[in-house]
């Protein structure tokens, strides 16, 4: 299958009232699972809603498989499956009916075609045994799986999923991650999250956003490499911990006996017996965010 191409050129969004949710962004996405990582309010959802043709950009444009998101909304919608962060489904319908309804909205006019698609996605999302359950009675994880199932109905070439694991228990989170990893084989998946572990488990490449600005675009490996030589680990007393907190970005703090084992990202660590360690994605993420904050503070 030829991979779908997304080209973003100068795309930005300023909401009425002057809130600049996304600064002009340039991006090219071609295949695999692409993660949007950033804290709340960084512009991830705004970007995704614009790609899903639900929000009018203030400037710039994006094309999905050559279709402009402004001019060819209907064509773009035919290419994508979208799962928003906060989504609701009709509580009185059963899982099966909900999917059938979404199939109709996806222009699947033939009942047999819809039924086959519903069976397929229920199987994929492990919902077959829940087919007769009313949507209103599903747990959070089940609802999330149903959300992904509805997004998959048309076997879209582009899947846009906003914060799929937010608010889920660990078991459901792992299940959703597994599902996303499985789905990424033959389509582009654009997944947003503020949970670094989700990116680590599912994504091939990522964009890091902060306050509507792109801080990094590339693979996980490239991001981690940027932090190589800047990740440190040390065991310190509680009192020392408080002193170091003022100076460095901590990526982890664990209790070890009466002392604390800390993980720091910095060029150098003074005042502690720190050892350089292999950086993780979390280190790299916090490093880049910390640098951006320092730059912003300096400016």
């Amino acid at each position, binding site marked *: 299958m030829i991979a779908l191409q997304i080209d973003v050129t100068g795309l930005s969004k300023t909401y009425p009232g002057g809130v600049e949710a996304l600064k002009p962004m340039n991006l090219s996405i071609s295949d695999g699972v692409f993660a949007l990582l950033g804290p709340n309010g960084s512009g991830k959802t705004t970007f995704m809603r614009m790609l899903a043709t639900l929000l009018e950009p203030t400037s710039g444009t994006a094309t999905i498989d050559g279709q402009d998101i402004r001019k060819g909304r209907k064509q773009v*919608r035919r290419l*994508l499956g979208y799962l928003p962060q906060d989504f609701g489904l009709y509580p*009185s319908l059963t899982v099966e009916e909900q999917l059938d309804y979404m199939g109709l*909205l996806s222009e699947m*006019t033939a009942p047999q075609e819809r039924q086959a698609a519903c069976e397929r996605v229920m199987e994929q999302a492990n919902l077959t045994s829940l087919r007769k359950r009313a949507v209103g009675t599903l747990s959070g994880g089940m609802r999330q799986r149903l959300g992904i199932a509805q997004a998959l109905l048309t076997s879209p070439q582009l899947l846009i999923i906003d914060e799929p694991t937010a608010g889920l228990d660990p078991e459901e989170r792992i299940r959703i991650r597994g599902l996303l990893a499985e789905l990424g084989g033959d389509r582009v998946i654009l997944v947003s999250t503020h949970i670094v572990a989700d990116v680590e488990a599912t994504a091939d490449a990522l964009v890091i956003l902060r306050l509507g600005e792109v801080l990094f675009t590339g693979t996980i490996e490239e991001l981690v490499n940027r932090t190589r030589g800047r990740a440190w680990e040390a065991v310190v007393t509680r009192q020392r911990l408080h002193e170091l907190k003022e100076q460095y970005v901590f990526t982890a703090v664990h209790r070890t006996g009466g002392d604390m084992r800390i993980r720091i990202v910095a060029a150098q660590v003074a005042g502690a017996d720190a050892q350089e360690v292999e950086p993780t994605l979390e280190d790299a993420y916090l490093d880049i965010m910390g640098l951006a904050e320092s730059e912003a503070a300096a400016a």
Partner: protein
Amino acid sequence: MKPLLLSLRALATHEFRMTLRGRSGLSVALGAGALAFADAALRPQSPLVAGVRASLFGCGLVLVPLSLALVAGAARRDDTVGAGDVVQSRPFPTHLLFVARFLGTYTAVLALYAVVVACSLLCPLVLAREFASPLTFVHAFGRGIVPLLFIVALGYCGVAVAGNVLAAAIVALYWLYLLLWGDFLARVFNFSLTQNWPIYGALALSAVLGTAALRRFQDLRRSGVALPLAAAGLLVLGLLTAWNRVVHSHDKPLHRDPLAMQLAAQYAKASPRVPGVWLPDQHGRLWRTSSTDGKVLVLAFWSPHDPDSMTVLDDLRTALKDVPRASVACLAVCLADDHALSAHVASEGRYPFTMVTDTGTHFSGKLEDCAPLAEAFELAKLPSVYVTDRGHRLVADLASEGTLYPEGMAAAIGRALAVPVPPGIGVERR
């Protein structure tokens, strides 16, 4: 086109299910049905009366507020459950989804109305072992189709455009205003009257298509031509029909029809002859008093708004059984602002006499002011029956005499038949 229609139908079916399924749907249907049954139980147990009450009480007082609540929920459903983005990111056009949802909700309202009518007609069966004819059901149900279409369209589009359920409350206030202050309004504003169907049918469709066009523009930034044109065309058609209806009818305070004014200007007490009548009968043909020259004339007044008065029709049928029909003409005058009611009652009851509707009837607190003929006869109460001799001179006013029962009617007709026709006395004709 066919796949699109199939999708519209399937989506409307889903909407229907979402509106009525589950315990809440069942409770709504049972509640509405129980109200209709209770209303029928408070009235004389004739299926005809129950059929009329089904459309007056069931449609007007039960279904109108209920349907406004349902459409307000349907129009805001995506926002309420938070499914807006999921639905809108689908390629199916949002304006067509809007139409499909309207159709589904409207069908659900009609289904509830069918329950209401059925419960109304069940009452005479349960309490008096009287079966309603299927025609009664069809007529009662039919009388609600366009009023409910209008109210559902207005509420649904209002809530969709305003984005607030208060729009449905405003529509409810409009209906309340019609109910409470009908005395001061021209009938043309009453969307529940069957003669106003073309007006409000066109306006309802115009509202739906216009809002759909707006939805299309909001979603795709393209307005298209067909939808706005169709909406505008229907709006103009509705308004022109309304204008035409007003200028060709006795619809005070907007317009007074000269013929109806002449009808009202005849005074029973000023002449030995009873006032003449020229009004359309149940088949739509003009009936004139002059067509009964040389016959004894029985004139009965009734109104569907006074269910007790409807018993006069059955009494009259009984009274006419043993009278020579060639010498007696009978006319039942219906005082109703809805012009189809008397025709419906005539066909449901298969009455062996002519029925006319006083088309100048207007909702009024005073009986003698409510219709030109009521004014002409200085009608004091309903039902009223007048019997004339062959020269159409008043022989008996049965309501005043207190003989409003079949035997009393037959006796009065017998007395009238015995009066010789005075030579040279004709009836006032038009």
